[in-house]
């Protein structure tokens, strides 16, 4: 026979107070796991990269509303407003030039062989502001190797989509469309160079360069070309959009360098978005240890 008796100990009595105070953390963790699950992204892949910074990350809202993406307008709020006009599915990338396996690949085929990882990188804009962004993606080198670049491939160039119907900013000639960027082959093959497909555990929003963008954290942000449709291996240093627009201001290398000023402003300090006081800008955006050797013997004042 079952005799119901009230327990003389309540949950209160058996729960350590410190643990009780953290009761909401459990929910947060649970929520976090649910979020990661919802993103369709395997948990194991978010393993922390040795290249990631542990600095405080810039809020998602700031990363997705404060953008330079002139294809959608020159105001920083324009991309968030108009980028939904861009259709990112279907998407394909044409790979060509000095390589053994050129071709036009559907986005799915570009992504298939690569497992995604998270890289928390500093991003320094040439205008003097910076963010810390948790990107998702894979190393650029892993992608480029698949096309088997030949010995003639000294540089790799990238192009963004051109379609004024999807990108209203392209109706005006503020830059030479398509937006074009490039890297020296050794820069492109460097383990820090990254192809991003997402941030904060989700797919990239269009204003951040969906579905596929470059991230080169030791260079000014404009080198990290967005919404890529073309990759070419070339022998000569390729032209870049900003280089064509103002050759005296935006060089091919455009490495973050506090010692070399932009002609119209100092690059010695930067405002980290969300912070009040400016902070010192670091050589190669703080990645000198990893990348300084790429430029040994080069005059960085000339090769700005």
């Amino acid at each position, binding site marked *: 026979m079952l005799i119901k008796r009230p327990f003389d100990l309540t949950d209160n009595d058996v729960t350590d107070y410190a643990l009780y105070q953290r009761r909401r953390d459990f929910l947060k963790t649970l929520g976090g796991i649910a979020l990661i699950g919802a993103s369709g992204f395997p948990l194991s892949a978010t393993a922390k990269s040795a290249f990631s910074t542990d600095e405080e990350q810039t809020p998602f809202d700031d990363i997705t509303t*404060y953008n330079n993406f002139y294809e959608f307008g020159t105001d920083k709020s324009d991309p968030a407003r108009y980028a939904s006009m861009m259709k990112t599915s279907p998407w394909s990338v044409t790979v060509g030039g000095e390589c053994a396996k050129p071709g036009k690949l559907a986005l799915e085929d570009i992504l298939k062989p690569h497992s995604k990882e998270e890289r928390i990188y500093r991003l320094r804009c040439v205008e003097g502001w910076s963010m810390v962004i948790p990107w998702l993606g894979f190393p650029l080198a892993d992608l480029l190797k698949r096309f088997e670049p030949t010995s003639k491939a000294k540089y790799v160039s990238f192009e963004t989509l051109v379609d004024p119907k999807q990108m209203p900013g392209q109706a005006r000639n503020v830059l030479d469309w398509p937006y074009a960027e490039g890297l020296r082959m050794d820069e492109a093959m460097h383990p820090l160079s990254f192809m991003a497909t997402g941030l904060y555990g989700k797919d990239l929003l269009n204003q951040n360069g969906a579905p596929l963008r470059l991230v080169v954290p030791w260079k000014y942000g404009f080198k990290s070309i967005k919404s890529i449709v073309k990759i070419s291996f070339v022998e000569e240093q390729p032209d870049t959009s900003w280089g064509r*627009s103002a050759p005296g*201001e935006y060089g091919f290398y455009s490495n973050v360098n506090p010692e070399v*000023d932009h002609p*119209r*402003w*100092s690059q010695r300090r930067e405002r980290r978005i969300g912070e*009040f006081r*400016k902070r010192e800008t670091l050589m190669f955006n703080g990645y000198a240890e990893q990348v300084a050797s790429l430029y040994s013997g080069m005059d960085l004042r000339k090769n700005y």
Partner: protein
Amino acid sequence: MCAQFPVQIREPYFTKIFKPVVFALALLPLALLGLGVWQDTLGANPIETITRSLGEWTLRFLLLTLLLSTLRRATGWVQGIRLRRMLGLFAFFYGVLHLLSYLWLDQFFDWAEIWYDIVERPFITVGMLAFVLMTPLALTSFKAAIRKLGRHWQRLHTLIYPLTVLGVLHFWWLADSKARTEVPLIYAVLLAVLLGERLWRWFVPRFNKIPVTR
């Protein structure tokens, strides 16, 4: 020119209502910025938003100040001239706030960096120069100064022309290359029209004397 423009505002309505309303409207941009700070709606880089907004309002008030005498000549609306000092002082007011926002919010009184900026960055150099030129105009805007300086006052206050040109140049040179000069271009065109009208009168004196038939 028609001496009596149809929409002259009768006294005491001009002094008691119209002028105070313009005054209140002129404070509105500042109030909206304050509200933006309070409600955190100024975007990811509020300091940039504040500095730029204050700078643009400085230019707008300078152009409005220049517009009043053009308007008088073009339409015969003489009353506008009585707003000129107030709008000119608002230009200075927003100019001071713009400068403060740069010195304090942006540079946090890092004088070495500020000096470097003034000497090395042409756009800061011309902006500072414009502010320096604006200061004596604000300081001599009260009645006693006008009386005391007499005809020198008039000459001193022609500084508004070069300083507004410098202000627009300051805005123009801030923009990246050719990509972002569209808005500064609007200011440049408006200023060109306002200065062009003055040059026109100066070069074609008979334009002043022969009554315009409408």
